[in-house]
């Protein structure tokens, strides 16, 4: 799409180059579109488009490769961090990004994300947490809150029956291989702006060779939650953000030495030097 810019005018808002001009399959009001845009903006601003290899998940974001203009490989459900590890180890010059939802990352793919983080793989993980399995029709996810209704918890999630919600990013943050972990939100423009900064930092952390970086983004699922988009945003702010508070969860970049270039072979894990478990820099 080309637009003629009139004399004296300047573009203050446009489609990021890496966000392809396509109609997405996402439901009206879904937060994935916002997160896609933020990823496209950050990769573009850092000039990473031509060297990015991204890993697409299974779930609502399975078609991420249709919307983001970078090289993509599709991973089996939950396995994106392992697939990304393989890429990382043979493509030291590449920027490697994973994009996963909460069913993908926090349920079936728990082993893969934990061990990629534990190895300190130089990866940037985008983790969109909307507390539900959207693609398959709104079943309970590990992140579904207590009391929340889903198609597989029709009376609401009850701890004695369904267990407790999993604070995945906090769990990952205790691992010394994790150089940076933050949680953003798509609730409003302020939260979105902050989320973009987290994403940018998580990309820089990889470029600096400091270790594994993850940004969880709490998001809404109007259809899965059975709400209007507006009501789902209210719930995101009032309820979800209380259970999963946004902020930087761990930042070891002060103590994790920068590596000149992402290492390959057996040295890659070593390049992600563990640091002291610092207190969160910002909450």
């Amino acid at each position: 799409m080309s637009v003629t810019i009139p004399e004296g005018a300047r573009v203050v808002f446009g489609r990021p180059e890496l966000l392809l001009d396509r109609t997405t399959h996402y439901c009206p009001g879904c937060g994935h579109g916002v997160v896609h845009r933020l990823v496209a903006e950050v990769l573009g601003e850092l000039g990473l488009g031509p060297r990015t290899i991204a890993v697409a998940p299974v779930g609502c974001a399975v078609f991420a490769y249709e919307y983001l203009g970078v090289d993509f490989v599709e991973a089996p459900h939950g396995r994106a961090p392992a697939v990304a590890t393989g890429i990382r180890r043979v493509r030291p010059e590449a920027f490697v990004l994973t994009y996963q939802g909460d069913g993908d990352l926090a349920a079936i793919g728990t082993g893969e994300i934990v061990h990629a983080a534990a190895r300190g793989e130089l990866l940037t993980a985008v983790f969109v947490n909307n507390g539900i399995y959207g693609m398959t029709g709104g079943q309970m996810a590990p992140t579904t809150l207590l009391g929340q209704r889903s198609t597989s918890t029709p009376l609401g999630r009850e701890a004695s029956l369904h267990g407790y919600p999993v604070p995945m990013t906090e769990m990952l943050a205790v691992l010394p291989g994790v150089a940076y972990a933050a949680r953003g939100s798509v609730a409003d423009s302020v939260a979105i702006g902050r989320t973009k900064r987290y994403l940018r930092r998580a990309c820089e952390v990889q470029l600096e060779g400091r270790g594994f970086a993850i940004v969880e983004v709490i998001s809404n699922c109007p259809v899965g939650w059975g709400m209007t988009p507006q009501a789902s945003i209210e719930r995101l702010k009032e309820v979800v953000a209380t259970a999963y508070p946004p902020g930087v969860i761990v930042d070891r970049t002060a103590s994790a030495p920068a590596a000149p270039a992402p290492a390959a072979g057996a040295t890659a894990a070593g390049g992600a030097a563990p640091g002291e478990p610092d207190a969160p820099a910002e909450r």
Partner: protein
Amino acid sequence: MTTAPVPVRPAPTPVGVAVRRHGRRVLMKGNEAIAEAAIQAGCDAYFGYPITPQAELLEWMARRMPEEGRAFVQAESELGAINMALGAAAAGARVLVSSSSPGISLMAEAMSYMAGSEVPVVLVNVMRGGPGLGSIGPSQSDYFQATKGHGHGDYRVPVLAPASIAEAMELTADAFEIAERYRTPVMILADGILGQAMEPVELAFRAPPRLDPDWVLGGAAGRPPRVVRSLHLLPEDLERHNVHLQAKFATITDREVRSAGEHLEDADLAVVAYGTAARVARTAVARARAEGIRAGLLRPITLWPFPSAAIAEVATRVRGALVVELSAGQMVEDVRLAVEGRVPVAFTGRTGGIVPSPAEVVAALRRLDAATGPRTREASR
């Protein structure tokens, strides 16, 4: 193609010095010989998880790959290992993965994805007894799994079955070549004996030439973005993809089928066996011939594509066939399909990690000989 430059670490004291002297005969363990053959074939990355009886393969790679400045990761599980392989191969690397039976079951998911998204990876299965945790003894009870699928969907995977450690080394190089030529995962199907035994081998390695594929991922610099995927949501798209895959499988069936025959020229009875079972069968054939039973050996080297035509041809010349396996009888089904009822097909096998003795095979040959008609008296010794 060229893969990304991999930084070379300062090499520590070389291990396996003997292996570096090309053109010499050395004694090598199967697992280690396959590993070194893969390295010499240009394997860029290895991913694995410890499991008996293939652990030495992983250990060899743990020492040697860093020496060569190549990638080695001991994964958190077989799921992790095979998906690392998927990523590395999608990024253009020559990749080896190894495991044993229970681990291969875990890898089945990604095998289906790799077949669907056409990602070349070489996978070694050093089979052990099953089902379940089974035993750590040698077995061929994963034949169905290896040749009929592993994972879901309409797909085939070339399966190479060495019968000696030297052959395992040759087939390792061949496996990379087949994988890359056809964009497909390839399995090397060995067993606990081939993995654990030591045999003298000639250190003659082969590195298949690198192709220059137009699909590998390395960042969309100066070209449109590429996607490696198996998802085709529209039925028409998926069927078109399946038609393409089936055409490829037909080409592989035409061009890559391999088998070897021994003493089949004048044989009255044909023994069909692969891998370690073929080694036992070879001894049994010699002993049977010493007794005046003219037996021969037909040894499939590719289990898929299966040498059906070679078996069918032999079936026109013999009175009966005997299939020997370290299983309860799996390949025998494919032999019967190939023979199409022309002659009786008998089976003898052991399970649980037990290898049938040559005496058991000779006894089965005697029974088949008696059941299929008068023995030809012209002895061929």
